[in-house]
């Protein structure tokens, strides 16, 4: 397990540094009381605040506050669109700014949840941010009305300008902002009907592109400050192992080296003038490890253990209907298959890093995090300081994919900085360290048994999942009676987080938990990835056994699930399922639901020898509301790059208790030549709010796998496909 630093009694007890609070982070009321009512502006926040979400400068600049993280997914722009829409702002004058986690505590967490995982940035904050924009608009109108001594109801606002039609008077937001900021903030203002949206719902360009094409965007790795030193870190290569000893004298004379430190019980760091010097010295540092009890664990031993779980007794049921045993016993035809899904690495292109400055009465951290409050909690715990003496400053993320909801790199940076008070320390993990001492998409296997009647109708389906629980490691407090409900993402009887979309009279989906020592974590799409592969591949297997068309076979079971069916029909129609595919080209289709959204895909592939050519992919999503169709289109297409990279090139293997793949030479990522052409269908029904950043990744792999089966007659059930000598052509 991870090292958990001792905590100062005065510090808030808001979780361990082991990642338990990375999601669902909540500050207890006692913590808020300890900070008191010293509500104040954050040092960098613009004054003339109109509520908490908007501040306007005299020059009409609109400063919109964003607390969710931007890691490329576009939420910063989308959230700003929602607020600007209700504000009736001039979009060309919109900028964004970021209240720090400490700002949030000082305001009694008025800005709400900072967490940006689970595709939740917009779907879980749209209501209150839009109300924030609307309240600010009402305050600005009221201030102008007061100045003109006319009723506010006679004034209108548009494009950052307020007009009183009867008198012909106009003014701008910037001119009345100071007066407006002194007015009370209206509660629960009415919101616009999305059909009247002018800014939200439009395919606007991102707000943060200009700096990214000239090399000026400040990522966490780019942060620097006077007197800063750099640190390179090495963890025990076997998870659960510890540092036995190291010989600092061997490297302390090397150029630039300032200090060799033990960071915690499992890791050692070298601090030097530059990171390259630190890494060079660390590579030369003799370290003895106590590798612990996991040194003999391998991918094969893990697989064997999981295999036992496919038939073991378990009481943890995710979805149940009827009597599967009886239905299977009486089946005209029985179909069985076993699948497995490997560990995957997030492999964010920017390796994990953070800069920390610690003194006896203050600790500041500059980093990129998907959850600023989790990073803040980690800094509080590691520093041992009171929360109002700690803050975390946001910098741009070089991707997140779930990895940056974990804050161990903040903990480690602070633990190093504590050993050099007053000196800013930038901790950067090498690619190899990032890859081999991270956290991973969990490993599972699944045994599926299906029963068909004489007409080829599905009368029963059993899915036994065996394998690793993310929550048992990452959020033990979220476990239910010792079991992990997130295991069943996309297979649940209902609910926004992933509802099963087939009407099968006898159904049993259960889980035998087996947790190897490799730490699991949330990885874009999380458990939906393997659950969609298991279910949607097997539905195809049953269709084949029944001698029926995979689309027609699905449709028979989906009458009660119109939204699931809606996206499936959309991709079928666009790909031309009812017409023959081009010569030599074969199709696969699938659907899934999760993170509030309904998704489907159809793939067209040809297979020649061991080369799979993906000619065309059609993907559809119904995310409820489409806040920025241009950015949604990108998330759809690009989720296929991430998902298909994992399917073909990814997979993490374990040897001698440690991760084998250390870099992109062995853990591949799709490049330009392999990129499939993805056509997207965005079909919001405007009656709910679903996520965008993840959902379409669920259908990337199964659509292609079903198309490969159609092309070859071979069903692939273990991954990555490189291990089956199957490559992208």
């Amino acid at each position, binding site marked *: 397990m991870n090292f958990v630093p001792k905590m100062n009694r005065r510090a808030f007890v808001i979780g361990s540094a082991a990642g338990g609070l990375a999601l669902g982070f909540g500050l207890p009321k006692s913590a808020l009381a300890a900070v008191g009512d010293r509500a104040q502006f954050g040092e960098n926040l613009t004054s003339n605040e109109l509520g908490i979400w908007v501040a306007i400068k005299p020059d009409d600049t609109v400063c919109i506050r964003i607390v969710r993280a931007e890691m490329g997914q576009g939420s910063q722009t989308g959230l700003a669109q929602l607020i600007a829409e209700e504000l009736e702002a001039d979009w060309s004058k919109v900028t964004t700014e970021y209240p720090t986690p400490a700002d949030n505590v000082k305001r009694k967490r008025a800005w709400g949840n900072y967490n940006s995982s689970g595709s939740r940035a917009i779907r879980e904050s749209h209501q209150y941010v839009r109300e924030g924009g609307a309240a600010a608009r009402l305050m600005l109108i009221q201030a102008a009305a007061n100045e003109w001594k006319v009723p506010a109801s006679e004034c209108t606002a548009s494009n950052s300008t307020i007009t009183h039609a009867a008198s012909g008077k106009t003014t701008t937001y910037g001119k009345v902002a100071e007066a407006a900021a002194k007015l009370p903030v209206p509660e629960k203002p009415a919101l616009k009907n999305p059909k009247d949206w002018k800014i939200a719902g439009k395919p606007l360009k991102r707000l943060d*592109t200009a700096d*990214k094409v000239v090399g000026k*965007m400040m990522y966490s790795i780019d942060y*620097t400050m006077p007197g800063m030193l750099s640190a390179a870190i090495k963890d025990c290569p076997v998870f659960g192992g510890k540092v036995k000893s190291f010989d600092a004298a061997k490297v302390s004379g090397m150029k630039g080296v300032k200090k060799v430190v033990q960071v915690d019980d499992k890791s050692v760091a070298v601090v030097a003038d530059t990171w390259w010097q630190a890494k060079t010295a660390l590579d030369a540092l003799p370290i003895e490890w106590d590798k612990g009890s996991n040194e003999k664990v391998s991918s094969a031993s893990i697989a064997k253990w999981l295999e036992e779980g496919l038939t073991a007794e378990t009481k943890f049921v995710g979805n149940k209907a009827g009597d599967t045993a009886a239905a299977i016993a009486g089946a005209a035809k029985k179909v069985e298959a076993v699948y497995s899904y490997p560990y995957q690495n997030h492999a964010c292109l920017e390796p994990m890093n953070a800069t920390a400055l610690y003194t006896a009465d203050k600790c500041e951290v500059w980093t990129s995090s998907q959850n600023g409050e989790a990073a803040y909690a980690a800094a509080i715990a590691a520093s041992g300081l009171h929360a109002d003496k700690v803050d975390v400053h946001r910098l741009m993320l*070089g991707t997140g994919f779930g990895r940056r909801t974990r804050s161990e790199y903040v903990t480690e940076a602070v633990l190093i900085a504590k050993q050099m008070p007053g000196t800013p320390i930038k901790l950067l993990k090498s690619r190899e360290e990032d890859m081999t001492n991270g956290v991973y998409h969990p490993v599972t296997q699944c045994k599926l048994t299906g029963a068909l009647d004489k007409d080829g109708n599905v009368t029963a389906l059993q899915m036994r999942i065996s394998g690793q629980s993310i929550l048992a490691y990452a959020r033990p407090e979220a476990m239910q009676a010792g079991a992990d409900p997130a295991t069943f993402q996309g297979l649940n009887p209902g609910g926004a987080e992933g509802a099963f979309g087939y009407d099968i009279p006898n159904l049993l989906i259960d889980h035998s938990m087996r947790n190897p020592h490799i730490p699991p974590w949330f990885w874009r799409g999380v458990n939906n990835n393997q659950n969609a592969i298991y279910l949607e591949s097997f539905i195809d297997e049953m269709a084949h056994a029944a001698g029926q068309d995979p689309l027609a076979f699905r449709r028979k079971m989906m009458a009660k699930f119109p939204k699931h069916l809606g996206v499936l029909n959309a991709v079928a129609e666009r790909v031309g399922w009812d017409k023959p595919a081009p010569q030599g080209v074969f199709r696969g289709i699938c659907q899934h639901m999760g993170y509030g959204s309904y998704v489907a895909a159809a793939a067209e592939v040809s297979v020649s020898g061991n080369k799979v050519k993906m000619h065309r992919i059609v993907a559809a999503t119904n995310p409820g509301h489409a806040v920025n169709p241009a950015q949604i289109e990108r998330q759809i297409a690009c989720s296929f790059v991430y998902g298909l990279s994992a399917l073909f090139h990814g997979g993490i293997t374990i040897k001698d208790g440690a991760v084998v793949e250390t870099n*992109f030479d062995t853990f591949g990522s799709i490049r330009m030549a392999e990129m499939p052409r993805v056509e997207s269908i965005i079909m919001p029904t405007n009656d709910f709010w679903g996520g965008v950043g993840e959902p379409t990744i669920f259908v990337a792999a199964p659509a292609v796998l079903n198309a490969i089966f159609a092309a070859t007659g071979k069903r692939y059930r273990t991954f990555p496909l490189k291990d089956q000598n199957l490559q992208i052509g």
Partner: protein
Amino acid sequence: MVRLNINGKDHDIDVDPNTPLLWAIRENVGLTGTKYGCGIAQCGACTVHVDGVATRSCSYPVSAAVNAKIVTIEGLAQNGVLHKVQKAWLEHDVPQCGYCQSGQIMAAVELLKNKPKPTDADIDREMTNICRCGTFQQIRAAIHAAANA
């Protein structure tokens, strides 16, 4: 001391000659637009031009860059005017997280220098940098747009 000419300016830096050019640029000169991704010339986030040739600077020693003209992403714009590739990247809203895009742009600039009107096959062959966000469709469109600018 090693003298490097970066973006038309000489920098005398105190660095071991075996230091990868990437780290000299980032840490000794202080230009951070060039990124670290893998350290083994796999991902291309560190791509700079050395005497006009797109080079993965993480695996290129400083000693080999002495006397060379080095151009980084910060030196691509001339007299405050963006390079046509940068303009196309803006126009096509290419970056997502943006971390790889300095390297992608530097690779694209060299591609267009050698192949002013590249085909899709040329782009497939020459653009080999990794983008974990997956912006390849936008990169391809932007390269074609820059070629026609």
